[in-house]
């Protein structure tokens, strides 16, 4: 199970859209992925350590170095499938490069 952390400003809209899209598309591509959606403000080092990949809309300054790979997932929010493909490709490449399972 690959664990992904999605995050946005309110933790109810954009991050859930990213979470749902990533889970659906990565399942289609044959990966066992579980994503959680949270508010950027609530992320701390302890929480981050439980995940394999971080997928914010754009990379935040959290006051600590983010120790896991980051894939910016903003284009998923445009709702135009062709614009989201590079995000999923990057995610797939990150999974392969880091041998995540």
């Amino acid at each position, binding site marked *: 199970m690959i664990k992904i952390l999605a995050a946005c*400003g309110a933790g*109810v*809209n*954009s991050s859930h859209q990213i979470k749902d899209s990533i889970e659906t598309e990565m399942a289609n591509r044959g990966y066992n992925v579980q994503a959680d959606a949270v508010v950027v403000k609530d992320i701390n080092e302890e929480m981050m350590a439980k995940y394999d990949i971080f997928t914010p809309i*754009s990379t*935040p300054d*959290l*006051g600590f170095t983010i120790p896991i790979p980051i894939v910016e997932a*903003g284009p998923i929010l445009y709702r*135009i499938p062709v614009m989201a493909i590079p995000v999923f490709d990057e995610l797939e490449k990150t999974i392969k490069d880091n041998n995540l399972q």
Partner: protein
Amino acid sequence: MLDGIVKFSNTIFQPLIDLGSAPMMLILLTLFALIMGVKFSKALEGGIKLAVALTGMGMVINILTSAFSKSLQAFVANTGIQLSITDVGWAPLATITWGSPYTLFFLLILVIINMVMLALNKTNTLDVDIFNFWHPALLGIIILYFSNNLFVATLFVVFIGVLKFINSDLMKPTFNDLLNMPEQNPTTTTHLNFMLNPIIMLFDTIFDKFFYKLDKYDFNAAELNKKIGFWGSKFAIGSYLGVFVGLLGQQSVTEIFALAFTGAVSLELFSIVGSWFISAVEPLSQGITNFMAKRFPGRKLFIGIDWPFLGARAEMWATANVLAPILLIMSLFLPGNAILPLAGIIAIGLTPALLVVCRGKMLRMIIIGVFMLPIFLWSGTMIAPLVTDTAQNVGAFPSGLESSQMISHSTKEGPVEGMVAILIGKAVSNPNAKSVVYAVGALSAYLMLFIWYAGKMKVRNRIYLEENEDASAPTPVAAKGTL
């Protein structure tokens, strides 16, 4: 003619309305999504989720208001401070608004306005943030509450909609700057939050002229957020505000603990049910996006999404964290305020606009933010009766509470627009010299301030453009290939 349309609509819709809000919106949302080309199963899924979210949100409002009302009333009796309105935050207000069929009507109008403005090159923004159309829709509902005049309500919604699309284009270079986005990144937003920019810009200009030396005392926002830790999270805020209300209401220790944990549960549940509700609108959002996007093939567009992409900037959170206790203390002493901040205490209806105008200068954001807070408290107080009434109409408000008990939102997005809508509604329902002067005056001042702000943003955007051109131009030496 409009009366005829309304009468005809009532004949068709009255049996639907009689079903109650949740079943009615299930049917209407499903039908609307089908019209937008969504598959039946997806459209129905959205409709059912909306009905479930409406029902769920009503239950959570019930939990919170039932638990807090006794203590709030005791607090009012003990202190004489009239803070009897329960602050339920944005999620219940969104749900209540989406529980009204007028929201779908205003949504349709705004989608048409967006397409017309795109076709006429009056905006470059394709707005795909369908969920947040509830904000301008609520403004229309405010006017309808006071005047029952659909034509005026629609005109005002269109007016605000047009300015929002223009504002979205104006802010785009600032978003690129704040988030280091490349030119080809299309992200922008039409959120009502940012219609507070003109007033903030007014304060920012004063700051530029007289207090610019204070900027050097700015501090690291991310460090501050890290120190605040879990105290800024929903369950913590719910807990300590429960303790606060319990102490002020002179409740027993047992009751204070119960209030603390009920507050925490309610704030967590508002968020969870809020996310159901957003996923309910998801199929419709995708349907409308498909419908609009295919009508502008090959056109380079900005894409308007929800504001949280700005959450990447730590200053936004640090300012919200600093403003929260200030809002609480201010609410106790501000004349004309009747809301005790609870679910809306983290002012995400304010700090994104502060971030955009002040471009991350923390001290400016906080100081100007303090001046903005009263506007939110007054506006939240003013809309409380209609929010409570509308909540009762859509079945999202408990009937067992005291009639004086009301709900609202302490940091509702678009506070100025809410006040202007109230003035217009009152002027239409009771057109005397005073009410008309107030409404016309407020509307004119609002428009003039926006025009002034647009001028300032155009100057800012020209500077961005020049900087980008300078940065991309090769230096003479490099151009000769001698480096």
